[in-house]
């Protein structure tokens, strides 16, 4: 992570085109979502069930992972465990290298983005081709995804056309969405038919059966899952659900929340290997990479309930302004603001828990009821506690200000004194129009775009006291 959220946001806010694209895309999905959610009378019950199932899994994660491992192995899959990104990449590389694979096709996967798999493969001479249309756009443009579900929403048709002309070596190409989609279909079809290996993430791992479920729209997933003889699935350890039938909850909540559809075009569920249908060799890599640490914190454990629908991004008024890139991680928006700093043990992304006005829109739509504002506040308190252990943090303006405010709020008398003091201090800042238009230091952030009402001559408590005296 390079820039803090406020700094990255400042840059992105200047990009009017990006902001228009983000606002349009999130509005479209949000409205579609609202429509298909409203028609489900049992939506809150589905959320309750989804939340409870995910919470139950997390509290028994070891048991369910072992169940999954046993069932998947019995069905012909090979299960690997990886403590961190490097280990997961090493395992994938070892499998591919031993089969002398030079090119793999990939299904859109946040997890492989998280571990930087493509770069690790490229470094060893294996090229990874993203097959989801948006991911392909991102990859061909040497760009990074800006949204969980629609990663290329920051690019418009003209930009995509130019990219395809250049990168696919085409002579001519129309600029409708249909033209561009057809170009991607033709370009990828040959690769699907000849690829010798595919890599996927997973939406769900089914403990009971050892099955894996992938939810998608374009059919690129089905191509990757069924055509190449070798398949590697990389999944976070939190992705497990207890039983096949638990899908009855998530297959109702995930598509509605993610793309605003009653059901997305394709869901694939497979278990190990199956004779002549699909890959002959199947591996699952179970990735920890910070997740067990999040699990250990009972307050933020709920972060791991996430099923990556992206609904929180589409309603977030902050994300709406900046898009996903400001979050400096593959996970943007409200879920990214809590997940990223935790994955990195607060050593990266410490500005992210503050990248929210705590408006609560994310919690309201979350299909597994992650109380994101609560986790944000919890993470803020951890950051503050850390800062207070350093001299710089202790003597920093925020800490000094907050300590002073806490002392003022200890009694009514102190508050009255502070109000009088404030009235005296504000005098030099009063503007010509009766408001304060410029403030120094920390408070300059406010006055960069907003005037401030001055403190009036009489506080409410002073008025009340005067009224009491006048009446008696």
């Amino acid at each position, binding site marked *: 992570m390079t820039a803090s959220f406020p700094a990255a946001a400042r840059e992105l806010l200047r990009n009017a085109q990006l902001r228009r694209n983000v606002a*349009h895309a999130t509005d*479209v999905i949000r409205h579609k979502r609202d429509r298909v959610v409203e028609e489900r009378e*049992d939506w809150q*019950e589905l959320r*309750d*069930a989804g939340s*409870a199932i995910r919470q*139950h899994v997390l509290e028994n*994660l*070891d*048991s369910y*992972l*072992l169940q999954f491992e046993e069932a998947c192995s019995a*069905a012909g899959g090979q299960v*690997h*465990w*990886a*403590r961190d990104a490097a*280990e997961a990449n090493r395992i994938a590389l070892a499998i591919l290298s031993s089969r002398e694979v030079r090119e793999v096709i990939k299904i859109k996967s946040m997890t492989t983005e998280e571990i930087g798999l493509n770069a690790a493969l490229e470094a060893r001479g294996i090229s990874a081709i993203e097959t989801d249309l*948006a991911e392909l*756009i991102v990859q061909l443009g040497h760009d990074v995804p800006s949204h969980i579900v629609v990663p*290329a929403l920051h690019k418009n*048709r003209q930009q995509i056309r130019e990219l395809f002309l250049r990168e696919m070596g085409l002579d001519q190409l129309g600029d409708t*969405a249909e033209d*561009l*989609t057809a170009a*991607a279909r033709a370009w990828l*079809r040959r690769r*699907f038919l000849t690829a010798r290996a595919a890599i996927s993430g997973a939406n769900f791992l*089914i403990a*009971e*059966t050892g*099955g894996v479920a992938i939810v998608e*729209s374009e*059919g*690129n997933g*089905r*191509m990757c*899952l*069924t*055509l190449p003889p070798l398949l590697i699935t990389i999944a976070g*350890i939190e992705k497990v659900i207890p039983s*096949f*039938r638990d899908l*009855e909850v998530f*297959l109702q909540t995930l598509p509605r929340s993610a793309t605003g*559809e*009653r*059901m997305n*075009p*394709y869901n*694939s*569920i*497979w*278990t190990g290997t199956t004779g*002549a*249908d699909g890959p002959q060799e199947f591996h699952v890599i179970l990735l*920890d990479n910070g997740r*067990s640490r999040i699990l*250990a914190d009972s307050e933020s454990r709920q972060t791991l309930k996430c099923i990556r629908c992206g609904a929180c991004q589409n309603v977030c008024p902050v994300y709406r302004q900046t898009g996903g890139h400001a979050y400096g991680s593959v996970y943007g928006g409200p879920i990214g603001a809590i997940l990223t700093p935790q994955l990195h043990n607060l050593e990266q992304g410490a500005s992210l828990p503050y990248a929210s006005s705590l408006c609560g829109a994310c919690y309201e739509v979350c299909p597994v009821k992650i109380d994101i504002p609560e986790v944000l506040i919890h993470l803020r308190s951890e950051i503050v506690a850390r800062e207070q252990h350093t001299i710089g943090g202790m003597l920093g303006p925020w800490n000094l200000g907050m300590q002073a405010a806490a002392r003022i709020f200890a009694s009514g008398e102190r508050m009255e004194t502070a109000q009088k003091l404030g009235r005296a201090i504000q005098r030099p800042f009063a503007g010509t129009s009766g408001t304060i238009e410029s403030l120094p230091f920390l408070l300059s952030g406010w006055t960069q775009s907003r005037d401030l009402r001055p403190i009036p001559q009489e506080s409410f408590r002073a008025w009340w006291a005067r009224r009491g005296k006048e009446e008696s």
Partner: protein
Amino acid sequence: MTPAREPILTRIRTGLGRPGSSEPDTLAAGLSALPRGYRTCANLPARLREELFIERLRDYGVEVATVPASTVAGAAAVRLAARQARSIVFPAGFPAAWLPGEFNMLEGDLLRPEELDRVDAVLTGCTVAIAETGTIVLQTGPAQGPRRLSLIPDYHLCIVQASQLVQTVPEALEKLDPTATLPTTFISGPSATSDIEMTRVRGVHGPRALEVILTGAQEESPRLDEAV
């Protein structure tokens, strides 16, 4: 090749504050105690269920014909002709009575992907269909074939028997449960993307067109026959 297995399990258990895994009984009891207040069974009579299925399919741009069992082959012939399909495949175990005789048709289970890429159309049955979401569910096996069969050809015509149709997603999962480990594909409309400026484009990598013939329904309206 799993040196990380024990360390990860230990981290998880330490994080959860217990030395070993939960007892299987405790786990099962915990799972069965979870709240499941959502709807798990149907509340529509068969006819309305079928109407809902048709309506939801049409929402995805999927054409549907409802025909008696005796005219499935004829209805299929009409659609294949309309598509100008020349090379057509079907899965092993596909009912002979459903095969339109006048076409050159081939059992496709053993075809390689590049051979399937030269095929115009595929006919399949299904295991279950879901009315509320307009979904057909295929599992590897008789009348449904291996997954690539219904994936690579550009046109997929699926025959759904009314007895296979359920109203809700939970009912479908219940019916699929005994064969849960078979490769399973839920199909809801043709492949689609909204990745470019949120404009819905039908037909990306999977079949660009999907059509359904519903047979054995309460009310038959051979809409597709009439279309010719």
